[in-house]
């Protein structure tokens, strides 16, 4: 049997145990559940809310106009088809008492209601300011529990605006009155993207849309790196702890094949786990970003073509191999599972730093020293590759690929050298360098 296949199969059997697969599936399920829950909260928050309306000015000319304005508000804000807005506004009788209004709302299952106060029409006709009261039932303490109350911040100014326009119709120069109400229009934006000017779009529209599509990439890459790291380091430590490494190293098989088998199996397991996480993460992030970003970045020259996706795949593949190489080196120095946990820390830090930086900042906006540090961390490159390709930063992309290639080769070369040396079995404890380091530490200890 092919030795590499034999080793890879064994490693996969060890890595893909029912318990590890179940724990990943549970995590994915949790992500999906959270995503679905948040998504449903978001949908509730962004869907046209059903509100109650108490008309204390029954039969009044301006109260009827206010109700009609509310229907128009639903049509314009929530894209409710003409004539269907009536389904979202539940008319309630006016009991004349605040508590009774609240009880009626509970009876009807409403958490927001408005009350046009008695004498509404008379007040407007007499040019006196009047009121539309707001009533809320506070029940949900969730993340978006208060979202429905925000409808009042837009619906009342809208109704007020409609009444203003209706009032100015009767003045001698209606056009001048409308101008006086709205002298400046602010609905014409022009944004420069990659050498082109695009009309009617702002950077926030584009970044919101791009973010909704790429936000989960650094998170998923971080998870894959940490997962692969812990898989490789644990595999190495368990080989030592269970005393199987010595036997394995005396098998008639080249050390490079043993290293390759471990790398390949860890990469396969890491990718399977990473893909599972990605599915969960897509659901999770979908919950947050489902209603964000109504524009398509492709329309603004920011889409990704087939070549771009190939570059992304190459970058992720190289990053995975760099992580594997680095972890194999760290794993060579672990003696047991406790040491393995400690050894996972540097990998986790190296994966988390670029994740946070790329999520909250762009590479070009960083100071020079930080840029150099970020470039040196191999996991930065797959995390920022999508954005770099969208914005035409090809030099940075290809420099990243070259760096990752060199990094992966060096780490794998060091790993093979370690597998051929005594260090794998004896550790660093007996070497001159380790002894002098220990001696230095002891000298520095306070007596």
């Amino acid at each position, binding site marked *: 049997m092919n030795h590499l296949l*034999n080793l890879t199969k*064994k490693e996969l*059997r060890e890595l893909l145990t029912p318990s590890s697969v179940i724990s990943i599936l549970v995590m994915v399920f949790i992500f999906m559940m959270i995503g679905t829950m948040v998504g449903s909260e978001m949908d509730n928050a962004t869907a046209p809310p059903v509100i109650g309306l108490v008309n204390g000015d029954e039969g009044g000319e301006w109260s009827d106009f206010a109700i009609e304005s509310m229907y128009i508000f639903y049509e314009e804000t929530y894209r409710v088809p003409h004539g269907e807005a009536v389904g979202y506004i539940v008319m309630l009788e006016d009991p004349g008492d605040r508590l009774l209004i609240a009880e009626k709302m509970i009876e009807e299952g409403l958490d927001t209601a408005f009350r046009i106060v008695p004498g509404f029409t008379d007040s407007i006709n007499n040019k006196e300011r009047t009121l539309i009261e707001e009533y809320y039932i506070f029940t949900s303490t969730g993340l978006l529990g208060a979202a429905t109350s925000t409808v009042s911040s837009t619906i009342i100014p809208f109704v007020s605006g409609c009444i203003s326009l209706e009032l100015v119709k009767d003045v001698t120069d209606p056009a001048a009155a409308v101008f006086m109400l709205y002298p400046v229009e602010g609905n014409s934006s022009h944004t420069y993207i990659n050498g082109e000017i695009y009309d009617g779009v702002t950077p926030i529209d584009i970044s919101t849309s791009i973010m909704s599509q790429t936000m989960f990439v650094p998170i998923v890459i971080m998870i894959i790196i940490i997962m692969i790291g812990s898989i490789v380091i644990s595999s190495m430590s368990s080989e030592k702890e269970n*005393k*199987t490494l*010595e036997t394995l190293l*005396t098998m*008639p098989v080249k050390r490079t094949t043993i290293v390759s088998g471990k790398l390949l199996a860890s990469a396969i397991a890491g990718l399977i786990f990473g893909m599972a996480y990605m599915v969960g993460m897509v659901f999770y992030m979908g919950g947050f970003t489902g209603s964000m970003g109504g524009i398509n970045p492709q329309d603004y020259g920011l889409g990704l073509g087939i070549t771009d996706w190939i570059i992304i795949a190459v970058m992720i593949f190289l990053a995975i191999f760099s992580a594997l190489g680095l972890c194999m080196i760290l794993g060579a120095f672990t003696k047991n599972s406790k040491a393995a946990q400690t050894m996972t820390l540097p990998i986790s830090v190296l994966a988390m730093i670029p994740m946070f930086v790329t999520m909250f900042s762009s590479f070009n906006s960083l100071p020079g020293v930080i840029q150099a540090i970020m470039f040196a961390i191999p996991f930065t490159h797959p995390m920022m590759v999508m954005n770099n390709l969208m914005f035409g930063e090809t030099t940075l992309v290809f420099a990243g690929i070259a760096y990752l290639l060199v990094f992966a080769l060096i780490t794998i070369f060091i790993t093979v050298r370690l597998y051929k040396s*005594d260090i794998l079995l004896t550790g660093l404890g*007996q070497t001159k360098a380790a002894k002098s380091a220990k001696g230095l530490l002891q000298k520095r200890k306070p007596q």
Partner: protein
Amino acid sequence: MMDTLVVKDVRKVYGEIEAVKGIGFSVKEGEVFGLIGPNGSGKTTTLRMISTLLKLTSGSITVCGYDVAEKADDVRKVISYLPEDAGAYKGLTGRAYLKFMAGFFAAGEEYDKMVEKGIEIADLGDRIDSKIDTYSKGMMRRLLIARAIMPSPKIAIMDEVTSGLDVVNAYEIREAIRGIAQKGVTVLLSSHNMFEVDILCDRIAMINEGRIVLTGTPAELKEQYGAPNLEEVFVRAVKG
């Protein structure tokens, strides 16, 4: 009979510690050779150097004519090393473990025969299909012995092979070692159990502080020291 193993003036230095200080011995084909000595005397280091796990600082070791420093890959084809307290992959079943190990030595029909042989030597009955982490120490040791013997090595190197086993398991394993030696396999073993060394080994070398202090058959050594058993020989040799 030709020498299967020749160790010449071998030294091993770890940093400032010289673990093995120029030892030399040879083992003939089909011979059971015992390496005995107190803890930290250099037995395991010597076995690890013979098994290609550690590099020699100086000297030479040849196994079946192959130099361990130059032809490590060829050496690994003819040896079978069973380290002290060796374990197996706990997530695998006994059968899967033997299959995995046999995969390094054979393919096709020969592979199937080797696995069957391993299962027969392990003699674990239905438990061969149980996960290894459910095995007792004795069962684990039987599986590992089966793994070591199954590929019919030219030389089997066993470090403290019966350490920690009960009387019955230790007896069965000693019988297995005797059986392979009768079939022509050279056995190099280290042990603290002087009774075991006495009844199993054709010749022994006593190692102390990285140096070989005695070599001979158990009978010769007992006669040399006028001692009734190897334990007394051992104590007198070590204490000078």
